[in-house]
């Protein structure tokens, strides 16, 4: 739920990176944190277990500065990917304005990706949203891994809504910023 504060001249939007465990959601945020201009972001906040897996969420505030007299901020969140944390994912989705669905391109993960997408659809319905007209982009991540599932296959199985897609290798940063730019713009369009 975007917040437009006319009095303090601020607009806040919330973007959530969703997907299975180890698909690269946190890696996306880490890359953005280390490569976006310093003045455009705050600190990356991570709530992780000792084994460095996301426990609750990661949080990265982006600040676009003042545009036409309004301060525009995007708050990026990740959800914990492990199946165990379904309720936590629902909690993080509260008030979301845009979603990046990060897909692990390894063949053995295809089914898990599919299940995660179904769960996302269910969670969004519980929050009163239909993914059909909601700002959502897919990131086909880990394209650098040998034996990655062909993009056409991922598209056929996961992207029946024909949303925009991006090939990525978040670990090297490939595709990270194109994904971010597009979801931010999609959110603005719907504002």
């Amino acid at each position, binding site marked *: 739920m975007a917040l*437009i504060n006319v009095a303090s001249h601020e607009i806040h939007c919330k973007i959530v990176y969703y997907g299975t465990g180890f698909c690269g959601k946190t890696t996306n945020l880490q890359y953005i944190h280390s490569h976006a201009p310093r003045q455009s972001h705050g600190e990356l906040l991570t709530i992780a277990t000792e084994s460095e897996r996301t426990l609750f969420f990661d949080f990265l505030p982006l600040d676009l500065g003042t545009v036409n007299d309004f301060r525009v901020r995007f708050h990026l969140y990740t959800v914990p990917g492990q199946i165990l944390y379904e309720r936590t994912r629902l909690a993080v989705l509260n008030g979301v304005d845009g979603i990046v669905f990060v897909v692990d391109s390894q063949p053995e993960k295809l089914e898990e990706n599919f299940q995660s997408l179904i769960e996302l659809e269910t969670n969004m319905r519980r929050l009163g949203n239909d993914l059909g007209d909601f700002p959502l982009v897919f990131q086909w991540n880990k394209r650098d891994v040998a034996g990655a599932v062909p993009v056409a296959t991922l598209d056929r199985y996961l992207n029946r809504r024909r949303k925009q897609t991006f090939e990525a290798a978040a670990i090297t940063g490939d595709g990270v910023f194109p994904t971010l*730019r597009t979801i931010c713009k999609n959110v603005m369009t719907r504002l």
Partner: protein
Amino acid sequence: MGSIGNMGNMGMENLTNIVVSEGELGNITRVLGRLTLDTGATHVLLLDKSGQLIATQGPAGQRDIIALGALLAGAFASSRHVAEILGERDFRSILQQGVNESIYTSLVGEQWLLVIVFDKQTHIGLVKVLARKATEELERVLERVRVGGRQAKEQVVNVQFRSSVENTIDLLFQD
């Protein structure tokens, strides 16, 4: 997304945003200011359920308020799911107690969170009572914000604004 998002087919675009006008922010600031004074709180925040900060009272720059807002909203959302699992109808407030400071967070009209950060000089009973009073006032503001939001939004978000934001996004987030 709470009650606004659940309102169904009434034109999704506008109902997914909360627009706070200048006058209403003044009302909110007055309520928070009085609450700060009456409770002796170190900080009082009004958050959207999504974790975004609407207004704050307390010393500026002392704390990372934006991160605090995201974490408290997350903790609150999480506690509501705990309530569901326990079969409780709802947890409408949570109290986090520290040695020196404590935080009381309560729900305002299913959409906002009122957060009061207070030290050991303030009794929790007082915080709860005054939070309830402030909540009633804030609920009235929220109701007006819901009704008046559309017009206020159209003054801000127009084609030119969207295009400027898109240019800024392209400029900042380059490979």
